[in-house]
């Protein structure tokens, strides 16, 4: 029980983050409890949030949530039930009603000082196109074409491209995806281990995996390699040809894999 209560308060602490907006909320709530006379407003901004806050803090609700609804990691979303912004802003409007202009300036300044700018340079980058995907990803994806109509392209790309490639074109399948690279999910992926995590890229080992006959027509036909990647040999010695490069990445096409696909699909409708 004590642990549950501690968890609940820890979530509030994390939700509060680096600013003081929750402090403002508590101040606004107290202010409205004392001064607000309109019963409808008291219902919406005082009684209802207070009850919701009590539900949020209730260890029984916490247990029900964790056991039956979702993981502890999303418990913070229950705080979305509390109308923080409306309460703070409404209380501010009431407080400045006699001196609106100077009050308005002060309220804006307080909100700026207590909050944190959304687009700080450290956490956002300039959009390169309407997709909001790095341009080199789009350029390399455009080069990943399949010679045989109706057969999907399989590609192996570095971590930097992994989240973006299929947002551009779902016709390109990936050898490994997000499951392999999220440390908190704890999956082991042999392909990711060999291609990305190994200090030196061992092409023999990698191509043994990517060209494995068990993959059928799902053998990997394209590899994207960062320039300067430490490799044990030249990819072109293994039947790969350099197709394009962009943004510091080189795109290789595996001709052996393409021949394998053609062999598998021989005498099928795909090849007619």
């Amino acid at each position: 029980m004590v642990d549950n209560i501690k968890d609940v308060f820890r979530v509030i602490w994390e939700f509060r983050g680096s600013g003081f907006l929750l402090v403002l909320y508590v101040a606004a709530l107290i202010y409205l409890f004392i001064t607000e006379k309109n019963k409808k407003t008291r219902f919406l901004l005082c009684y209802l949030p207070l009850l919701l806050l009590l539900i949020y803090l209730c260890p029984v609700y916490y247990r029900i949530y964790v056991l039956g609804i979702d993981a502890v990691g999303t418990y913070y979303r229950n705080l979305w039930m509390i109308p923080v912004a409306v309460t703070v802003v409404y209380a501010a409007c009431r407080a400045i009603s006699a001196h609106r202009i100077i009050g308005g300036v002060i309220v804006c300044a307080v909100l700026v000082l207590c909050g944190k700018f959304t687009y700080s340079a450290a956490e956002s980058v300039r959009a390169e196109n309407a997709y909001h995907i790095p341009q080199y990803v789009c350029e390399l994806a455009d080069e990943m074409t399949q010679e045989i109509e109706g057969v999907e392209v399989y590609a192996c790309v570095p971590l930097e491209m992994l989240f973006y490639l299929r947002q551009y074109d779902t016709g390109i399948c990936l050898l490994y995806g997000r499951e392999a690279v999220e440390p908190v999910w704890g999956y082991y992926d042999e392909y990711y281990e060999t291609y990305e995590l190994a200090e030196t890229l061992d092409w023999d080992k990698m191509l043994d995996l990517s060209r494995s006959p068990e993959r059928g027509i799902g053998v990997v036909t394209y590899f994207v390699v960062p320039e300067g990647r430490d490799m044990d040999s030249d990819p072109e010695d293994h039947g790969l040809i350099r197709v394009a490069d962009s943004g510091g990445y080189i795109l290789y096409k595996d001709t052996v894999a393409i021949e394998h696909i053609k062999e598998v699909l021989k005498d099928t409708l795909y090849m007619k």
Partner: protein
Amino acid sequence: MIILQILMCILLFAAAPLCMGMAVVSGLKVRSLPFAYAFGFLVMMVSFEIVTVPILLLTEYANFHYVIYIYTPIMLAICVFGVIRSLKSGFLEEAARNLNNALARIVSSREQLVVWILAGAVLIVILVLTLTRVIFDGDDAYYVVQSLIAQQKGTMYSSNPYTGRAAAIDMRHALAVFPMWIAYVGTVSHIHATVLCHSVLPVVFIPLTLIVYGQTGAFLLKDKKELTGYFVLFIEVFILFGRVSLYTPETFLIARTWQGKSVAANVLLPMTFLVLWVVYTYESSEDAGLKDIRRAWILVAIINASAGIFSSLAVVLTCVIQVSGGVIMSVLGRGPGKFKIRWRPVLYSCLCCIPGFVYMLLYLYYTYFGWRS
């Protein structure tokens, strides 16, 4: 092509929600154009969910093309009904009159004009930042790609979005069909789903959030209309400087505008509060008849029904808020000074949760008994 795309966006993001909202809001006494517009989005979501979930569960590979063929005429029918109902009830004339009065009030005062211009300028700053800056979010590799798969391949939730391999349906995410709504809009407007998510939807959902908040402010500050502009301006500043942690609704609004949980946190839940305020207006009024009160509670039921499209958690949160609201209304009683418990608000608030319960039953059934077992 670009003219067609813009035209379709105007129809789908402006005209359709307004008409669909008017279909419901026209019958109320507490009504306004912004309220009808914002509520229309939720009506759109409910109708889309009712069409899409059976297709998802019952058709081979969850054929997305059926959604387009079936939902489009249904949406148009609701829109036509909304226009007819609003004309019959005189809502459009009333709304136009109110809009004129509000504009006249703003223009007649230099202070009001400056405040609203400032609010408009801050909104433009937010939108420009949203369109020109990128905040990385790993969940896009799931949600955006699900929309794009539906758009490009015509199937719903039938493959792993991260790799493209065939996969069993993930019921936790699949019942929340908001990514399919994005795919629908992208398909009928001929816009790539990723472009739609990152470069079009912020222009829709950030102003929509402000409309919901602004309408809440207008209701709360009914006797001090001169403060409504300040209310909107402060909300904008709050949003722009609300990223105190990764968990706030404001962070989600800016960084993940196109994800269902963001819309749930910033549109659905504030709308729930707004609608509860409307319901309490009726419940606490001596003049309101039972018919009016029931109509107001229907809004609550629609909100509850729409929650499932955004996320399964949104269903739980709306149920908790609605029942809590019902409990407090019951305790507060009708009229000032009368402290007596009435059971109707609690009963109605529980009845309004029935759509959410149906959703949760579906979720549990398919989670524990498997999909197409």
